[in-house]
């Protein structure tokens, strides 16, 4: 128990640059990122090959002449051995060539680069709104409902944040469209032409995660305010502000970030649904129409882009975690 743990953490003497905890953390994190990327790329490659039947026939429809299908297959290299195709796929990826849409005949990279900015804007804004709302709310609620205080506040906050957190973004979007678009007519409900058009999509994407995140932060805050080191801080007779913001908050944030990271990456994917509610000209509406049109080259590329976005968010969260809490650099050893 505690006897065993006191020595387990004794720093072992290590030498050389590669042994510095930060370097080793960086290498390990990079390694994980690369492995995840490889899995992602391979999965997106395999996706087309796992579809039952001929993807070209599916895309061109049953009425297309067999010669056209055969020509298109040859053009895409679908008749080569799988490993050769895989190799070509990787080569093309490195040169930024994502293939050609089977429906519109446009280069997929062009479609993606046209659509990506709108999605990025939406996701980043929603991130910012969610975090800016969740952190102060969670901290304040944590302090207000720390041991024995504010039972009613706690019940009201917990219940409402659970309920709000459950509402999926697209339903929230439909609700917001009805209230602010249809009934009140205050805000536009489609497109991204004006700044006011951003309000509803960003809100429907941000509100749910913000509710969940603030709930997590509150719970962590309450837990941390009971920790031994907070008692130590009190024994030092520090002012309350220093105890809450200087000692408790960084620890509450590290504990929340792990789950918060998952929420943030879920927001990246959440754009798919929200864009479809608001006819947002981004990747999300494109991927759905492409799936329905069986335009698999485009689907493949967009899945890849979303996956990379998620991996980037995860990596950023891990780095933030390491910056706040130095222990996390050695935790996984």
């Amino acid at each position, binding site marked *: *128990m505690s*006897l*065993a*743990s006191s*020595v387990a953490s*004794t720093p072992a003497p290590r030498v050389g640059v590669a042994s510095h905890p930060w370097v080793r953390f960086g290498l390990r994190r990079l390694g994980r990122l690369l492995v995840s990327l490889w899995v992602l790329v391979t999965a997106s490659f395999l996706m087309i090959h796992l579809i039952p039947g001929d993807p070209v026939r599916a895309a061109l429809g049953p009425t297309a002449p067999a010669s056209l299908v055969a020509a298109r297959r040859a053009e895409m290299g679908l008749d080569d051995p799988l490993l050769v195709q895989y190799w070509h796929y990787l080569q093309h990826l490195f040169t930024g060539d994502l293939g050609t849409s089977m429906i519109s005949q446009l280069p997929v990279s062009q479609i993606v680069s046209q659509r990506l900015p709108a999605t990025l804007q939406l996701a980043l804004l929603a991130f910012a709104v969610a975090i800016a709302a969740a952190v102060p709310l969670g901290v304040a609620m944590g302090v207000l409902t720390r041991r024995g205080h504010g039972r009613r506040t706690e019940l009201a906050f917990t219940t409402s944040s659970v309920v709000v957190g459950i509402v999926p973004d697209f339903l929230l979007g439909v609700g917001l469209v009805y209230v602010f678009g249809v009934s009140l007519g205050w805000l536009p409900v489609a497109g991204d032409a004006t700044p006011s058009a951003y309000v509803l999509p960003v809100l429907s994407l941000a509100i749910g995660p913000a509710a969940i995140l603030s709930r997590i932060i509150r719970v962590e805050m309450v837990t941390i305010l009971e920790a031994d080191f907070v008692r130590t801080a009190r024994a030092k007779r520090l002012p309350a502000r220093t105890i809450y913001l200087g000692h408790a908050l960084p620890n509450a944030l590290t504990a929340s970030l792990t789950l918060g990271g998952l929420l943030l990456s879920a927001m990246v994917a959440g754009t798919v649904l929200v864009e479809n509610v608001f006819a947002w000209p981004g990747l999300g509406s494109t991927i759905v129409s492409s799936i329905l049109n069986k335009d698999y080259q485009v689907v493949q590329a967009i899945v890849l882009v979303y996956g990379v976005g998620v991996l980037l968010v995860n990596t950023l969260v891990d780095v933030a975690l390491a910056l706040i809490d130095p222990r996390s650099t050695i935790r996984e050893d």
Partner: protein
Amino acid sequence: MTTEGGLRFEDVTVRYGATTAVDGVSLTVPPGQVVGLVGESGSGKSTLARAAVGLAPVCAGRITLDGRPVPTRGRRRPLQMVFQDPYSSLDPRMRIGDSIAEALPPGRSRAERRAEVERLLELVHLDPGRAAVLPALLSGGQRQRVALARALAADPQVVIADEITSALDVSIQGAVLNLVRELQRELGLSLLFISHNLAVVRYVASHVAVMHDGAIVEEGPAHRVLTDPCHDYTRELLAAVPGSTAPDRPRRTP
């Protein structure tokens, strides 16, 4: 200490990744004897115990029981272990009688098993009528008695006791130590008794081995090791025992 029987560790080494937890340890627990193994946290004493019962990988050396390798497969297990934390060592969802019965060697009728469980509970001074009770209703000391009974159920040749009193309140620790001594005498049990507490080991063991940094630094009859230590580390340990009046450290007076 060179008899053929008993539990023998021969040059045992255990590694976890780059760290060597146990480094070439040789130790014998002769039949019917209690060997105390003392050391501080991280000295490798618990790892040695876990290696003996197959819970830690042995990298080099061998561990034998009466000259044969300790079986770590199959139902017959002549080496048993009692753990430190009585709140973790019993399945909270299993009646204590079933926990004990699970360790019984196979091939008995239901009635025989029940009778055997009752006999074991009585042996550790628990009411046999409480076999159907869940662990949550027992105190720490009572749980540790159940754990002892479960270890004895397997009809072991040797029992390893790993810090079995260090999680207990002082008033209960004495009762468990008394029970261990009584069982040892009545059943002629062989025991490897692991503890960081020298006074406790002194009370229970006839032989003592001192472990430090994965190696055994001193070993011998308890009386000799604890009164006339040869190794510096043993001396340091003895001097650190609170209330001890070791000559090299004058008692503080204000």
